[in-house]
């Protein structure tokens, strides 16, 4: 295993302890629920999308440090992005946590790159993003990482 510190970076502890954009979102027009049956992580994502631009996004739920920090970092990254840009980020993030090369500039999300060395934890990091994908498509069934 690589160093535990590659996985648990300070930024991740910070976002786990103080998740950003946490709570309900008044005026949301996109919504999805995510569930990771393996560890019991649950996540509700609400977005306000106008003219194809993500104006606001907030999440609720409970999960491990990786899944909470990933959701928190994701909400920060998404604000002001178009839906198309969000989809590009989703794909780039997915490649990164799977340990594949990506040309997408992921900014702060890159702190989660260490997850690729911990295969059992990839689902934790991906849950928020899969939920986002569903919310943008406005799928009504809860998303499961299984």
């Amino acid at each position, binding site marked *: 295993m690589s160093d535990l510190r590659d996985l648990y970076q300070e930024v991740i502890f910070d976002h786990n302890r103080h998740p950003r954009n946490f709570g309900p979102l008044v005026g949301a027009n996109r919504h999805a629920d995510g569930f990771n*049956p393996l*560890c019991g*992580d649950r996540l509700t994502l609400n977005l306000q999308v106008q003219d194809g631009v993500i104006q606001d996004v907030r999440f609720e739920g409970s999960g491990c*440090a990786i899944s909470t920090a990933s959701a928190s970092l994701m909400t920060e990254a998404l604000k002001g992005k178009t839906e198309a840009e969000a989809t590009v980020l989703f794909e780039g993030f997915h490649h990164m946590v799977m340990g594949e090369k990506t040309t997408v500039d992921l900014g702060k999300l890159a702190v989660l790159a260490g997850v690729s060395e911990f295969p059992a*934890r990839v689902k934790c990091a991906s849950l928020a993003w899969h939920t986002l994908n569903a919310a943008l498509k406005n799928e009504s069934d809860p998303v499961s990482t299984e």
Partner: protein
Amino acid sequence: MFDVQALRNEFPILKREVHGRPLIYLDNAATSQKPRSVIEAECHYYEVMNANIHRGVHTLSQEATDAFEGARDKVRDFLNARQREEIIFTRGATEAINLVAHSWGRSQLKPGDEILVSEMEHHANIVPWQMLCEATGAVLKVIPIDERGALVAGAVASLINPRTRLVGITQVSNALGTVNPVAEIIRLAHQVGAVVLLDGAQAVPHMAVDVTALDCDFYVFSGHKLYGPTGIGVLYGKRSLLEKMPPYQGGGDMISQVTFRKTTYNQLPYKFEAGTPHIAGVVGLGAAIDFVLSVGLKAIAAHEDRLLTYATQQAEGFEGLKIIGTVPGKASILSFVLKGVHPHDIGTILDSEGVAIRTGHHCAMPVMDHYGVPATARASFALYNTAEEVDALFGALRRVEELFLK
């Protein structure tokens, strides 16, 4: 004389390292490690006598059949069943429960009949009964548990009624370690004519089981939690019940005569063993039973109880740690949560220290709901674990604390 170091030498895997540290394997309730004698028994079967059973007249087939049926006799002795025909080999405890739900359940139940399980059951002792209820119109009732993780006092007596047809209950809870008062439950069930299936998956590695004395109607367990191979398990059923039950699967070995007009089924136990079974697994299971009996179940239980007591003392002094399942007389399972740290994070950090525990819902989501937690961390002890390993567990938990709660 219980010599844990000598016993450890019998388990080749305990010599390996994980992330540069000695393996400390505390996930025994998920599956136990295998002694050399079990590994060699399977290997010997393939190297010396591999053949299909019950049909060949050649030497290898005869030897393989003898080894296979010899293991059945060992299981009969191990459970103290009256007859070898009452021992059916399955893929595991899960398949054994499904067999009963499908064969006994679908032939016996009608709408309005009740099946009683407990809130602490493994999903394997919930879902097959739910499927059976969907198919037959029977109703699933649940015995609640209290804060300690014991069945609520008096609940069994109040829930059992003349509509109750089957009680399915675990002898030892995999998520909590609770040992259930199964003798009393069997007595109550039989008063109303209900049958009782005991899930013995967690019990058989820890206590001597006597199905005749218990008078249970069905008993199931898996080989792999008993230091045996994966993919093999046992259904014990009273002969009077098994005789009346239709086959579970059709195929070779379970028939006595096949024509396109009519097929007659084989006698017990073969009626329920369609197809070529996991012969090597059965042979390995026989070796596992020999191993466990040579160590002695009383000695194993005493050793595991000492470890659990020691671990519980340390857990109680660990700030922020809450034990899930606090019934006195638990069996070798320490389930817990740590304030401010998700069990999954605990599991990853412990793994980096070489300590293997289970984190998650332990296939017992209703138990997690009962305690209002998404998951727990669970350390479970086996005959080869030591007090030093318990120390290492809590040393690793200090590391979690340093990382997360500093």
